[in-house]
């Protein structure tokens, strides 16, 4: 848990974008990420760049890159450094440090080699302003590129995360990359805004699991591409590979920690209600099964407090869908699983 975080005022319309930066050799990629922020239709943006083992010289270079973008006004930014032992991957600590320093009501994260489409943050913040959800997510596309004659040549774009549509899917696995959402900090307890520093992989999914167990998310923009995950040869992780738990020992270990988190988390009743009885399951369960109050009561009874760990909830969802809808839900579930499996090898 992070200490000293305050809840921003609702008069505050600033979006703080936390960018973690690990490698001084990626300044050109970082500049493109920052250029994408300077082009945003949402103009009130604060950049919080957190550098792993940054020096004064690198901080100055990054500050200069920020200043040289075509911002409409004076850019708001902080460039911070954190020092670690050689070889230590401080990705969660970098995020936490950025969150601690962010001044905006709205919060977003961006990796140094990705970018956000011009309308992205505007769409998500406007969506949040029309509801009471804490987080709005949009569609993330993945581009694949190779270095060719000194340039990154994009040879493919697709949307491998589009299998995920709702809360039930998010409990099953992550389909919301870290730069595809915006959080409204006025609707969230400061003690919930932290990344687990034990995790150097899937820390973003762990963060979302903890939030989704407690708060409601806005999934209404999942068909609207808001950002791009750039996969190229210097990426630490392929966007599809992390779906495969057996990929590497590091991924296996992270998966085990995620599984432990799912078993230890308790889901709030309000989220549970939403998860089982509203829009979320309508994909899998025909409306007549979802809507009648008798089913609502049945489900609440089924999910007694001791059964409310996330893993058990996911099992119950699919058990319930299986019992009530037979082949339809099984087909939907299997189709998703097959699509995820195929996406891992695409």
């Amino acid at each position, binding site marked *: 848990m992070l200490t000293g975080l305050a809840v921003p005022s609702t008069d505050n319309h600033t979006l703080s974008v936390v960018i973690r930066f690990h490698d001084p050799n990626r300044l050109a990629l970082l500049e493109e990420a920052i250029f*994408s922020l*300077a082009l945003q239709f949402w103009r009130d943006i604060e950049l919080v760049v957190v550098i792993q083992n940054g020096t004064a010289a690198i901080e100055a270079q990054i500050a200069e890159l920020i200043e040289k973008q*075509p911002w*409409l006004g004076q850019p708001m930014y902080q460039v911070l450094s954190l020092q670690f032992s050689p070889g230590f991957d401080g990705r969660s600590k970098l995020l936490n440090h950025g969150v601690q320093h962010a001044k905006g009501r709205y919060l977003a994260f961006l990796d140094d080699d990705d970018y956000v489409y*011009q309308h992205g943050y505007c769409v998500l913040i406007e969506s949040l302003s029309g509801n009471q959800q804490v987080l709005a997510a949009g569609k993330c596309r993945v581009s694949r590129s190779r270095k060719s004659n000194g340039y*990154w040549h994009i040879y493919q774009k697709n949307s491998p995360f589009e299998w995920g549509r709702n809360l039930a899917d998010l409990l099953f696995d992550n389909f919301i990359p870290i730069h595809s959402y915006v959080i409204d900090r006025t609707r969230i307890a400061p003690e919930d805004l932290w990344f687990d520093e034990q995790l150097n992989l899937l820390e973003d999914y762990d963060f979302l699991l903890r939030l989704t167990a407690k708060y409601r998310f806005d999934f209404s923009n999942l068909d609207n*591409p808001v950002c791009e995950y750039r996969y190229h040869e210097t990426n630490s992780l392929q966007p599809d590979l992390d779906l495969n738990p057996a990929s590497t020992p590091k991924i296996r270990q992270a998966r085990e920690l995620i599984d432990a988190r799912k078993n230890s988390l308790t889901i709030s009743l309000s989220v549970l209600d939403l998860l089982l009885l509203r829009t979320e399951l309508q994909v899998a369960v025909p409306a007549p099964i979802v809507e009648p109050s008798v089913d609502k009561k049945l489900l609440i009874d089924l999910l007694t407090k001791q059964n409310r760990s996330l893993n058990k909830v996911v099992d119950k969802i699919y058990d319930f869908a299986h019992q009530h809808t037979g082949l339809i839900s099984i087909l939907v579930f299997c189709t998703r699983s097959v699509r995820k499996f195929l996406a891992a090898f695409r």
Partner: protein
Amino acid sequence: MKKLTIGVITYNNSVEQLTQLSKSLRLAAEHLTVPNRLVELLVIDNGAESHWPEPVCNMAKLPSQGNIGFSKGMNCLMDAAFRDSTCDAFLCLNPDGALHRMALQAMIETFERESQALLEARQFPEEHPKPYDETTFDTPWASGACLLIPRVIWQRLGGFDSNLFMYLEDVDLSWRARSAGFSVKVVPSALFGHAVLGRKPNRDIAKFLLLSGRYLARKWQNEEFQDWAERELVSQGFFASRKDIPAVVSSSDEPSALDFGVADFDNLFYFSIPRWT
């Protein structure tokens, strides 16, 4: 001293858009290190009078002629620019975008190596999916959103086809350039920030696109595409029947000057096999 003239047509653009564009132009001009190179900005207003927040690149304006469309507007700007004999290149630039600070440098450096080619900046973050060769950077056609036209190509081809009010004039110019033996290339290191995703559907745009597609098909002798465009114009409700669609104006280009083999109508408005859809 050589001059690059940047031509911009405004059409009721917001002050925000023009502020960002002019700021990006100033930054790009400041980062230009190519020797003996001047950059100037030439503007024509197709809509209301535009108000630019800061003087940038010795900006000058041509008198407005009303909404004369993109092709005629750009041709006016090019005629004026190339009257100055020191102007060896013209950059068509959309007003609703912003250049990356290194974009002008990349465009001019490439132009000085490739003076016989139309040069297109890479739109950012969403670049056009049409393909380009990773070694030669040749591409089937170049978008007019940020397009460098060398004097030599303008002298030979005379600018855009003014029968096209808006849309696809860049495809036509590219095909005419290739027909005449010039190249068409992408400059991947020149970024032009331009929002192409997340736009609300606009019926006027859809109509102009189909009408331009129909004209292009007629000019480049693709009956199948022309037929498709006319059917779409009716089925989308722009015209009650095909008889109601205005007759296609004849092109002033000699068919003998057109290499019909360069025209690709097999992939709808991609006019090439896209890298992604």
